[in-house]
């Protein structure tokens, strides 16, 4: 069974009395263990697709199944719990909480899955060590470099042991060497069996994955293996 299955999924936004068809009956399957890139220029609908796949939003029409959950007409609460259990996010802007130190940032998803504090802390510390931040546990994001911040974000994405990790332009705010290193981490994760979905506008970055899906005007224009 596919990890992600989209059948005729559309997403329509209404702005005033104008309809904007951000996604137009998209069919897509992603299997467990794949490393997929979604590329396309801005306005192509790739962000919308990522929001749907990442359970941040529900489709207007069509059928969407993620990790065995039918999310075609899902409530916000169901989306939230799928996000919490099955999905990790890595954003371009890191999206860390500036007031919290590394451990507390990393343990954030665990807070909402109802774990007790000692276990949360243990798992957060382990996740932070796994990305090489064992000596930075008590630092705040402002005290870290961009690459370190993105590693905190990756630790946070992994702490709940999700099946899919989404990365939205994860190297966009980093210099090329650091970006290279972060991409390397995703590759390693994928080798470890994790499903990775990378969203980018840069075909060069998409080349690290093994399947590229190109989106334009809300439709999948082509798929290829780099």
């Amino acid at each position, binding site marked *: 069974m596919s990890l992600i299955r989209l059948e005729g999924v559309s997403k329509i936004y209404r702005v005033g009395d104008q309809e904007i068809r951000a996604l137009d009956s998209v069919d897509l399957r992603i299997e467990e263990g794949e490393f997929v890139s979604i590329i396309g220029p801005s306005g192509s609908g790739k962000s919308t697709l990522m*929001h749907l796949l*990442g359970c*941040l*939003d529900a489709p207007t029409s069509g059928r969407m199944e993620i990790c065995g959950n039918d999310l075609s007409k899902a409530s*916000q*609460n169901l989306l*939230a*719990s799928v*996000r*919490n*259990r099955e999905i990790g*996010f890595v*954003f371009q802007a890191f*999206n*860390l*909480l500036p*007031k919290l130190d590394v451990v507390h940032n990393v343990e*954030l*998803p665990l*807070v*909402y*899955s*109802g774990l007790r*504090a000692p276990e949360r802390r243990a798992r957060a510390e382990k996740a932070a060590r796994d990305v090489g931040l064992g000596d930075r546990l008590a630092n705040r994001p402002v005290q870290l470099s961009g690459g370190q911040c993105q590693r905190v974000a990756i630790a*946070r994405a992994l702490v*709940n042991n999700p099946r899919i990790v989404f990365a939205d332009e994860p190297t966009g705010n980093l210099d090329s060497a650091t970006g290279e290193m972060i991409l390397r981490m995703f590759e390693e994760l994928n080798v470890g069996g994790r499903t990775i979905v990378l969203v980018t506008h840069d075909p060069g970055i998409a080349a690290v994955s093994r399947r590229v899906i190109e989106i334009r005007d809300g439709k999948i224009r082509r798929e290829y293996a780099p």
Partner: protein
Amino acid sequence: MNLLVALQIGLHEIGAHKFRSFLSMLGIVLGVSSLISTLALTAGIERGTRAFMQQVGGLEYVSVVGKEISNAKFEFWNLSPGRTLRDAAAIRASAPFVSHVSPELAFGAAISSPGHSDRKQVRGVFPDHFVVARHEMKVGRFLTGLDVERGLHSAVIGDDILAALWPGSKAGEVVGRQFRINDRPFEVVGVLPKYEREEDRRRREAGKVSPNSRQSRRWDAFRGKNESVLIPFSTMFYEFKAGAFPLDSMESARLDSLTLRVADLDKFRPTLDQIRGALDITHRGVDDFDLETREEWFDRMESSIRATKLSGGLIATISLVVGGIGIMNIMLASISERVREIGIRLAVGAKGRDIFVQIIVESVTIAFIGGLLGVLAAIGLIAILKSLAPTENVPVMTLGGIVFSVGFAIIAGFLSGIYPALRASRLNPISALRYE
């Protein structure tokens, strides 16, 4: 997410914006402190009033007073003997709901001890007077049945009389001493304690004000009791009254006062009926008496206490509501500042409910801390009130008042958190994440 985590986040948030949090608490602090102070002030007034009610005999105290005869029965005026000892006997015999009856004779007389003299009201009473007038003994004993039966020259005196007859003497020293009432010798058998308000007692014990400097100028509810000169009823009649009305016997002498005590307040009405029934017979149907009760008077006092409580409480409540609005304002500002944070929390799996709980907990925590500060402020405020304007009744801070006020603050915090919390919990994760 459990409440503990929400509380941690909330405290963290409050700690991160100390000044802002303090400003938002300020309304609650003022509201709670004024509510507690108001409650304490009215509780003080209430306690003072109740103590006063007790001292004047309580609700159980009923007085039989003279009244003008109605026109219909005016012709029969001379059928009635007026208030006499027979009335007292009739009430004792046929009004079982009455526990004590105190008939009195009174007249103004010169009282003197070697070197001092004064004119005071002297009263001839029965032992029941002790209960009806709510006396206590400081030293010695009250008048007994034997004093009355034998017409002994015993006297019980109040604290002010003690001071007038033997200035500087202690109550214990004067029992057994002689003094004169209109030149007839009497022996002090007992001294009554000094009756005074709580506040006066405290002030006297602290030695702040000399006991008589202010009181003498002010109307004092207990003055009558402190100026008591009590002698046996029979002694009063034979020594001072019989000569004036040679035709009267002790039984038929007109009383100056007839008061009594109702045994059970639950049977107040039936008791009054019993008394009326008994007196109708002794007065031969002439309506020259009336029963005076404290009900109306006490009701008036109670309703003025209630009115004070209500108006004070209302003002304090308004300031608490204002405080709640302050919290709401700050919470709204705080969430619009934290849209991105909320977006991140939503993205990692927080449900709308979790965000709602977090904002509510934060707002309640602010209100609760504000409430606690308000309690401290109230303690200070009451101390200042006490020293600036010493009232007749000391403010009493009750645990109930504190719990009520802080509870009220918490409710205000909860209610004012609802709207910001709803707004925060309905944020769309995608637009919240994009928010700059």
